[in-house]
């Protein structure tokens, strides 16, 4: 375990130093992301210029919801997506062997192969924005904030597993282009309260493709629309996806035929 942590930190340092090598580029990307955040929040402002509420959610609530979704996406782009996209590029070239030959869990090495540190600034800005919004919203207890954070972490792990499974599918399709658009499109469903969907779709988005745990449920817990049981459900779903994705990875590796072997 300690060895894995050391490797994780080493990979982390490598990509941090690399980012510092391209400082201007990283800064431009950060500014771009921040403009994007501003645009999305301004869109909510415009939306509520025309409507009173969306599926029972008020403007301030939707603002926290959208910010949470944006934060979720930025963290995914920092820690998860770069590695997954890295390997989708390796599969058609038959270069996955390098991960399989490493002394340790192949899944671990695949998952830490790349980090994008230019997401640091947008993440920081979003946390600040959410903090201000919570203060403005008022009446939020420390326990709620802890539950909110816990659900977000559970959601991040769940979606790491789901996208890991998507990525694993490249073993069969060999080439799936637009993978990054796919990631963003799936998570963009989370931008609005899950209550906008009818019962059937709501079930899908709660348990099968649980986008409800990206923002709707964390924010519901935060503002008192849902209780602790939601956190428990979120954790159970996370555990199921962790096992499911591990099983799928092992299954896929049996089918992997590389270019060389």
């Amino acid at each position, binding site marked *: 375990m300690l060895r894995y942590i050391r490797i994780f930190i080493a990979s982390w340092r490598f990509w941090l130093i690399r980012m510092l090598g391209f400082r201007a580029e990283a800064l431009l990307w950060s500014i771009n992301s921040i403009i994007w955040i501003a*645009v999305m929040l301004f869109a909510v402002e415009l939306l509520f210029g025309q409507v009173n509420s969306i599926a029972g959610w008020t403007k301030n609530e939707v603002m926290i919801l959208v910010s949470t979704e944006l934060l979720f996406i930025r963290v995914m782009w920092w820690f998860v997506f770069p590695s997954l996209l890295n390997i989708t590029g390796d599969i058609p070239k038959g270069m996955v062997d390098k991960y399989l030959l490493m002394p340790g869990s192949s899944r671990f090495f695949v998952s830490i192969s790349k980090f994008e540190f230019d997401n640091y600034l947008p993440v920081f800005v979003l946390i600040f924005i959410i903090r201000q919004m919570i203060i403005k919203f008022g009446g939020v207890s420390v326990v709620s904030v802890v539950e909110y954070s816990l659900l977000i972490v559970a959601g991040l792990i769940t979606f790491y597993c789901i996208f890991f499974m998507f990525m694993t599918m490249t073993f069969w399709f060999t080439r799936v282009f637009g993978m990054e658009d796919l990631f963003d499109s799936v998570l963009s469903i989370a931008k609005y309260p899950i209550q906008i969907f009818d019962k059937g779709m709501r079930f899908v988005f709660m348990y099968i493709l649980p986008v409800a745990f990206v923002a709707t449920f964390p924010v519901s817990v935060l503002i008192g629309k849902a209780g602790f049981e939601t956190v428990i459900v979120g954790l159970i779903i996370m555990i199921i996806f962790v096992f499911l994705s591990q099983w799928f990875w092992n299954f896929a590796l049996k089918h992997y035929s590389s270019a060389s072997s």
Partner: protein
Amino acid sequence: MQIQLALEYRGGVIIYRFIHLLSLMTIIAVWLASSSIDDQIGGYTKNELVTYYVVALALEGFVYWYVTDTVKEEIRSGEMSAKSIIKPISDYWRHFFGELGYHMIAPIFTIVPVFLLIFFLHANIVVPFSALAVFSTLIASFFAAVLYFNITYSMGLLTFWFEESTQIASFVWVMLFFFGGQLVPISFFPNGMREVISLLPFRYTFSFPLEVYLGKVQGFDLIYQFTIQITWVVILWIFTKLLWSFGSKRYSSFGN
């Protein structure tokens, strides 16, 4: 060749289209679930808004070009010299016709999701009121596609000056997305902003054909906005010519 390439990776394209459909369903569900101040939301009825996004999906396949990356890669790798600079052909038209193949196939991938949406939402879909509206929509969409090409092609050409033109490209992309009316219709913006947006090129790549379809732009206003759209097509076409003539000289002088 582009058609072959798209068909070869059809698995990816189809999955992508369906996932994209999911995110579109979200915005449609928002309109159906929102409670408005009165019957109208930003000058649209709920059904018109639903139609706006369904037609938008059909339009995307027609309007979008992926030429920025192609041009960028050709310039960076040095292929541009062999492919265009030393040849007596226009680089603009080479890229235009080169991607036209993909452009003709792209709407096919969009047809299935569009029909699915129409199937589920047929009660909410508004059909255009006249043959003239259909005709004007087609013309507006055609110019929108050319305008979008001019914008994305010039972003690619910026690579002559900037090693990493991607950031500038993604900034312009945000403008296209936001001021183009892809996120929310232009009528949601405050008055002053709306007037500025109507003079910028972005709106004419996307929201203009949609508003023509929904009959929001009519009569003299239609002619006026068509004039702005075509003016931008010409201005940006001249802009691409300028970028090309200055850029390619600079490029050759580097010894490529």
